[in-house]
């Protein structure tokens, strides 16, 4: 053996391996702290185990998908400004062929933008009555509306 290949005396790699194994005990302990049925739950959204609120919002967007035409122009309304912002941000990627328009952006109302949309995804609240909409479908956590043609 080349002397350069030997470890310095008293400096065994085993210490590092023991420490590496000790690190692995932390996620194992965290895992086993949860009941088995929770462990075996198959997630539906990418955020099921990290952010329940956003996971629900993602589910809402997925539920709206079958009720929208290809390349829809839509807006999202929600009572909670944080939820409205999250839904808007996620919808740009969830519907990559679409044009989502904000009705609220970082808590700042932008109704003049949102009212240009052909469809309204209403999350946990009905849209404003004067928006002149017809119900397309009720979905989990909300509904999809379409703008009626101007009389």
């Amino acid at each position, binding site marked *: 053996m080349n002397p350069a*290949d*030997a470890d310095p005396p008293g400096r065994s*790699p085993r210490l590092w391996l023991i*420490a*590496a194994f000790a690190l692995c005990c932390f996620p194992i302990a965290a895992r086993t702290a949860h009941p088995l049925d929770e462990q075996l739950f198959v997630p539906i959204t990418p955020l099921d185990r990290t952010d329940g609120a956003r996971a629900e919002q993602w589910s809402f967007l997925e539920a709206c998908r079958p009720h929208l035409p290809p390349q829809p122009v839509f807006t999202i309304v929600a009572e909670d400004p944080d939820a409205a912002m999250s839904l808007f941000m996620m919808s740009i990627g969830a519907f990559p062929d679409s044009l989502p328009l904000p009705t609220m*952006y970082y808590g700042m109302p932008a109704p003049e933008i949102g009212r240009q949309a052909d469809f309204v995804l209403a999350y946990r609240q009905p849209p404003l009555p004067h928006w002149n909409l017809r119900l397309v479908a009720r979905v989990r956590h909300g509904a999809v509306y379409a703008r009626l043609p101007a009389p």
Partner: protein
Amino acid sequence: MTWPLFLAAVLAIPLLGFGAAFHPSVRSELAPARIAAALALGVVALTLTGLALTWASVRWSLATLAAPPLAVSLLLGHFWARCPAPPRRPGHASRRIALAATAIAALALVLLFWTLVTAGATSVDYLFFWGVKAARFAAVRGVDTELLRWKYFGHAVPDYPPSVPILQAWGALAAGRLPWRFVPVCSLLWIVAAAPLARALLRRRIGDDAATAVACFWVAATSITIAQSYSGGNAEAQLLFFETLAVAALLVEDAAAGASRFLPALMLAGAVLTKVEGAAAAIAIVAGTVLRDALERRRGTLRRALPIVFAPAAALLAWFAFQRHIGLAVGYSSHGPLLGVSARFLPSILGEGLRNLDAGTLWLSWVVPIAFLLAARPDPRRLLPALALVAGLCGFLVFDYMHDTRDPSQRIGWTTPRVSQSALSACILAAGLAWFGREPRGQQISAAAATPPAP
């Protein structure tokens, strides 16, 4: 079933950069280490190709994106294959150490895989902007310049470097759409890819078993912190890959002038194309390397710094030029005026910062390497490329948080566990070399040659 196609596209990225596997600095290593080098070149080439095609108004397809990297790889590979490469040092690995390390690393990776596949570590930012950009880029078959300029897309930080969205869009093009649930699982691949090359680099300075053990610890610590910091699907794992390998390559390089800096230069270019923090890390790593070379009076310090300065600078300039071309503000936006800092929240910043460095292991991931580092009492000059990253990244974070006008505790909780991962990685590498290391091989040889024969 879109995910198998997405996975196949991701696994094909090393093919795009196969030329790097023939570079003399890695050619004599084992295949997994060479694949990591090829992956790095593939990522950098794919990112630059994505930008160039959009600039030239050429629509993306798998063929148009793959052709330039493949051509470059072919040329470089052909050239490098003719250059002489130093032979790989014969191994003297203990079978028991290798088996134990493999088992522990596999356990850590299985735990990370399980966490990612069960949506237990998905980054919210992946759904807010990383994946969003990727899905839109794939849909319009190019960098969606109109979207990046849109005033209602400001939340998606349009100035962020483009590598991660372009890579994910590459996969989405192959799969037909972005498999949102599966993409975070691919964060694991960066750890899997980095470990063999990190080990190969470490064994240039320390014994085989020591390199194996340090790489094993690195895999365990980073796998846990990727999961704990919810880094699935965002840029952190990719950044960790590039920064770790840049630091490792610079730490172990021979003191004798002439050793190639292709590998660290490539890794630093990859880092700056991955995340804003990659640029800050590159500055710290380069500064640490130049300082080490100067303090150790290595020959050609400035000349040898050129590749590791030029490569990341060129990558950054490419992105900035693209920003300018599409009408974005050039550069990166800061949290307020650059020097508009306040020490008002410093106690809170330091307290929360330390609290959020627990790395999912009650700080053990930090305590172990720091303990080895202190116990080894190394010459700190040798470790400057890594120590500069640790100090630079921590300093950068504190400086950034000091710009906040409100208590940044919440922001520290969101960002520190993610952003500190590269510092942890560098700390592990430095500790491993300090604990097991000797003088660089070149110095040993020189010293041996200079020693007169015993009478």
